[in-house]
């Protein structure tokens, strides 16, 4: 590697890539078990809703290898998890609230015995009528949290006077995270009642808090470590906590190390997913397609507990505008309680569902008026004052969508393809084409302002090697790689000289979840602050030695250079150590400018917006509803990229995951509330055959206009929503059967759903 160049800004390989491709990278289940390790398996409710009267454990207890069966009555402290709303039991005790809810654990000498025994525990449950979907919950006014409304202007009045109106409703499905590594935790009792937990978690700090709460231990007696996750996507933000608490309770009660890893089917049945939404809307617009008024009812299926449903639904409201100015708007949000898995964070965190609604509306306006949908979208974009303020009162200062859309329209040859597509549809009887461009504007920062802080610890050893701790976690997104690049540049070192071991609650206290796309913004900045502190001390020291000014000391290529001398980094470090100069430092960062008032729903919840747009072309078979994507062109804004290869990886991966959400990934519950798509045999995420050869990604060539680490922008979530172009392209193709006629195409757009839309136009 060329040591002279900067590390940030280059496509360095993921810090774990070589270990991953040789099978050396360890995940929690790969760690060697300590002697005496026991294995836990969940006992799950088979009823969606009912009163739990007894557990018959006779048969299970008698199985050879079964050590103990744990249920609610065995809990050492609070029977509720330390969730934000404090509404979720560790184990169901008197009432079960979804099929798959965990009632207890079987602890056994091996995992197969534990699982077999768990099936033989018989729960006596007197069934109660369950609420299984949004419609039932709305009718019953069944909420996990009270409804919330956001209003600006005079939507009713503006709607009444609008030249054109459309009203409609649409649904968008949930989504299973399908992290390839299922949920897992390994809890190891320590001396004096302390506990150590290996957790596959996006939020070790919260896991620590939950475990401490459940075991009634002070937090400093609980250590949680996460080296890496085999995928997270939001699914290991709160949901990893359950596994860790269960394993820790079992470890405390048995005095043995306990590993708990869910089988894939259990993972589907137990853990929460992306919220599915129902939206009803009324929109008024002018003859050019510019929206004059919008009223939307957003209802989501939250499951049996609140979990993160409050902020998820808030974010759906915040992103209902996507990139569009809504002068008169009312959004009513209902957070429905149902007897199903408790839905949770998932990449985009409600944003995709909110944007799904407005993009649906944009397409409908275009079809109703017979105008190109891209033109309608452009006419509604945020602009200069007064068309620059969001419904929650934040001024959009960094809007680049007008230029970005023009650029993509040109580079993707959208207009030529649109014309050619129309010509194709006139010639071909069965296979129709559609094309769409949709934009993304996604707000970056946790909407709960307090979480926008991060800490880091950078330590320089006397051999010149550097170890970084920070509060973020690695789930494949390349956070550790980017942090190492930033720290390497701060100290003028080659990449290989900087390492990160694992995220560890005993190193960095009170770290926020690695979520909201903010992992790099927060943690790389904190690590940079720490590294610069060390650099300054070394610069002062070198300046003393060489009698120059500290700002004349340069750090580059592993050398520390003054006007009179050049030293190896390690030489100066050793001299500094001998001179008793502190070679480690902490760093702290909090996001500036943000503020938000939950009661008025007004403020600046986001530091900045990340933008992007995608052009997608599809083919549909009008006899079967099957479809194929034939081209994807993306132009996305990551500011100045710290690592273009990693950012492109996030963009492509996010897009394909969003494509799956909108097409093949269908969650189906049976009439009794049992999820019947609970494994990859029935739940279909995209495969390599689903992506077209033409899959082009370009990065928008402009730094973040706000002061952010390296001029970069967050990239984890925003590209997910680029996939909305897929469903809009499908709708464009369906529309070719009977242009300007309204139809409903809900998501996921399975072949069956597409055929249903086609039949509406043929009827």
């Amino acid at each position, binding site marked *: 590697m060329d040591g002279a160049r900067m590390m940030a800004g280059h*496509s360095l390989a*993921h810090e*774990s*890539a*070589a270990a*991953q*491709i*040789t*099978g050396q990278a*360890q995940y929690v*289940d790969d760690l060697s078990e300590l002697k005496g390790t026991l294995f836990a398996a969940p006992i799950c409710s088979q009823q969606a809703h009912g009163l739990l009267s007894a557990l018959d454990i006779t048969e299970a207890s008698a199985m050879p290898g079964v050590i103990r069966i744990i249920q609610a009555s065995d809990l050492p402290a609070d029977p509720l998890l330390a969730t934000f709303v404090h509404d979720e039991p560790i184990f169901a005790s008197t009432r079960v609230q979804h099929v798959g809810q965990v009632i207890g654990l079987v602890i056994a000498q091996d995992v197969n015995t534990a*699982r*077999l025994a768990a099936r033989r525990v018989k729960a006596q449950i007197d069934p109660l009528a369950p609420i299984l979907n949004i419609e039932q919950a709305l009718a019953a006014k069944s909420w996990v949290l009270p409804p919330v409304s956001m209003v600006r202007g005079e939507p009713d009045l503006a709607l009444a006077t609008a030249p054109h109106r459309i009203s409609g409703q649409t649904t968008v499905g949930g989504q299973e995270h*399908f*992290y*390839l*590594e*299922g949920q897992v935790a390994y809890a190891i009792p320590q001396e004096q009642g302390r506990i150590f937990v290996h957790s596959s978690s996006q939020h070790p700090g919260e896991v620590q808090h939950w475990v401490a709460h459940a075991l009634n231990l002070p937090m400093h007696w609980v250590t949680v470590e996460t080296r*890496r996750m*085999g*995928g997270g*996507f939001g699914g290991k933000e709160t949901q990893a906590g359950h596994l860790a608490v269960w394993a820790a309770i079992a470890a405390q009660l048995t005095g043995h190390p306990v590993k708990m890893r869910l*089988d*894939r089917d259990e993972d589907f049945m137990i853990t929460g997913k992306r919220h599915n939404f129902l939206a009803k809307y009324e929109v008024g617009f002018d003859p050019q397609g510019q929206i004059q008024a919008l009223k939307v009812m957003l209802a989501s299926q939250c499951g049996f507990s609140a979990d993160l449903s409050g902020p998820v639904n808030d974010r759906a409201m915040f992103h209902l505008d996507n990139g569009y100015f809504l002068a008169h708007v009312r959004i009513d949000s209902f957070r429905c309680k149902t007897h199903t898995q408790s839905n949770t964070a998932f990449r985009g965190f409600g944003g995709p569902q909110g944007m799904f609604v407005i993009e649906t509306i944009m397409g409908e306006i275009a079809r109703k008026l017979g105008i190109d949908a891209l033109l309608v979208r452009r006419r509604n974009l945020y602009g200069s004052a007064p068309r620059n303020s969001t419904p929650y009162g934040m001024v959009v200062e960094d809007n680049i969508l007008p230029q970005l859309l023009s650029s993509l329209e040109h580079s993707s040859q959208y207009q030529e*393809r649109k014309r050619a*597509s129309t010509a194709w549809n006139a010639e*071909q*009887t*069965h*296979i129709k084409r559609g094309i769409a461009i949709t934009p993304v504007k996604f707000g970056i920062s946790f909407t709960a302002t307090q979480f926008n802080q991060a800490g880091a610890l950078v330590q320089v050893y006397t051999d010149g090697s550097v170890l970084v701790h920070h509060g973020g976690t690695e789930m*494949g997104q390349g956070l550790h790689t980017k942090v190492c690049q930033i720290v390497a540049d701060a100290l003028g070192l080659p990449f290989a000289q900087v390492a990160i071991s694992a995220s560890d609650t005993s190193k960095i206290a009170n770290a926020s979840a690695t979520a909201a796309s903010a992992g790099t913004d927060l943690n790389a900045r904190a690590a940079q602050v720490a590294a610069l502190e060390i650099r300054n001390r070394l610069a002062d020291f070198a300046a003393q030695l060489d009698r120059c000014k500290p700002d004349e000391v340069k750090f580059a290529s592993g050398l520390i250079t003054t006007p009179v001398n050049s030293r190896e980094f390690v030489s100066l470090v050793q001299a500094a150590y001998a001179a008793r100069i502190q070679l480690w430092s902490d760093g702290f960062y909090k996001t500036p400018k943000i503020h938000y008032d939950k009661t008025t729903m007004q403020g600046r919840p986001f530091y900045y917006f990340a933008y992007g747009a995608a052009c997608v072309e599809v*083919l549909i078979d009008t006899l*079967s509803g*099957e*479809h*194929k994507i*034939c081209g994807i062109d993306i132009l996305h804004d990551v500011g100045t990229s710290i690592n273009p*290869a990693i950012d492109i*990886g996030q963009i492509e*991966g996010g*897009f394909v*995951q969003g494509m799956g959400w909108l097409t*093949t990934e*269908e969650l*189906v519950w049976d009439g009794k509330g049992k999820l*019947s798509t609970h*494994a*990859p045999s029935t739940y*279909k*995420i995209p*495969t*390599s*055959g*689903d*992506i077209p*050869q033409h*899959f082009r990604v370009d990065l928008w060539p402009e730094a973040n206009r706000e002061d952010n680490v390296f001029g970069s922008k967050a990239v984890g979530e925003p590209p997910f929503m680029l996939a909305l172009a897929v469903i809009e392209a499908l709708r464009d193709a369906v529309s070719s059967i009977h242009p300007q006629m309204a139809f409903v195409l809900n998501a996921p757009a399975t*072949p*069956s759903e597409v*055929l249903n839309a086609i039949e509406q136009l043929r009827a």
Partner: protein
Amino acid sequence: MTNQDASNHHTSPGAVIRFWRGGRVHQIPTPNPNQTLLEYLRSPEGLNARGTKEGCAEGDCGACTVVLAELGDETKPLKFRAINSCIRFTHQIDGCALWTVEDLSTGQGLLHPVQQALLNSHGSQCGFCTPGFVMSLFALYQNQNDQSLQAQDQGNLRARGEPVSREQAVAALSGNLCRCTGYRPILDAAQAMTLLPKVEQPEGAIKAALLALAKATAIAGTNSDDDIKANANAKELAPAIDQQGIFHPSDLATLLQQRRDHPQAQLIAGATDVGLWVTKQGRRFESVIDVTRTKELGHIMVSASHLEIGAAVRLEEAYQALVNVRPQVAVFARRFAGLPVRQSGTLGGNLANGSPIGDSMPLLISLGASIRLASAQRGPREMALEDFYLGYRRTALALDEVLTHILVPLPKVEELSRIYKVSKRFEDDISAVCIGIHITLSRQNSTTSNPTITSARIGVGGMAAIPSRARKTEDSLIGKTFSHETFVKAKESISREFEPLDDMRSSAKYRRQMAGNLLLRFWHEITQPHQINSLESLDAKPIVWMAQE
């Protein structure tokens, strides 16, 4: 693991499992009939090799992919198969060579081209699926061999690692799921890996080791000298029941005898479904009979009238044989499960399993296939495939019987046949509806310019509790003019003929619609070849790019 010199192996008949990995032969002294290969790989008591991951334990995600090579035909190069170790049983690797992700790098940090290409293209993010992708690509690398005569002259060791097309890469990765990357960098790596300096496996040594293992097994079964051919008597060759309840009969007579003597023993072949009975349903077998070593069940033969496929022929080879005589089956064949399942599962297993959504049945029923069953007592019998299915997952197979062969009539000049499948995802998905259509036409007795339909066979899956023939709809076609009107009527007929279910794969309504619409697709495909009638075989490209070609 004990390092065992296989040629010395004369003891403990049939009870020891031996396989080659990492330059030497390993043995498992007391195999458990219910242990999966993945459990064995990861267990501290097994290989303690935890690079191979469990993603689903049902053969649908590919995180557990490893590569096996069987000896097969000694005169041919080794065939490398990527398989799902999560549903293959440990005892089934007896006599095989095994590679896991740990086996590829050549030490000192030297990466195999597969690994180097993945590294270069940023093909891993979270890395959990990565070992499986590495192994699927490794099998592809090994099987991309130089087919030229010159290369063949050099004996068995034909050059591996020849160029890979994007289509081949997609096919090779059809059983691997990645949730992070969106696949583009992995497909790039698949095409770039063959441009890197080649790495060879010690195939000569491996074949020699496997040959020695095969002989040792034969010797162990007979306690006689080392000439396998001299011991062709089946009863002598077959190991007696071993103490672990694992039977690997090497010939049909022994298989039938063991089946008769141990009717409770579970018959297994590729274990692509039986494996799930263990991992997902928690079932445990006292004893198992693995039919994949039974040589008579491994043959493919072509007679003047029929293609005869042994029941234990892997789906990949069985479908290749079907495609060879009916090329229109090719796309369907690629969509049957993912490659690791096709490399493991057998055609006989797919049929005998009797699932109403198995894909082979609609095809073979439409082609008029029959099956041969055999028992030690009563010998062989044949029946039409559709008559084999009696009820949901209930077949005509007697407790002492084994499905031995599938007989598929060869195509006739006057036939028109197609097979269609509709599912949520094109690759590696189970059908919502599958329909095989086979008709013959004649111009005799035709009163119009169109010919007359003289025979019709329609096989359907997903429409009833068993794979079925759509007899009423066939009747609505036979004797009618080959016309759009006839097919519109047939469409109406087939949507009335069945009472399909609503389930997680499809609504009943959609199944009915599709059965009918696929009959229309058949009509369009035959009569409107200038139109594009289906997406599954279409190489989808942006329209402007298409126009430029």
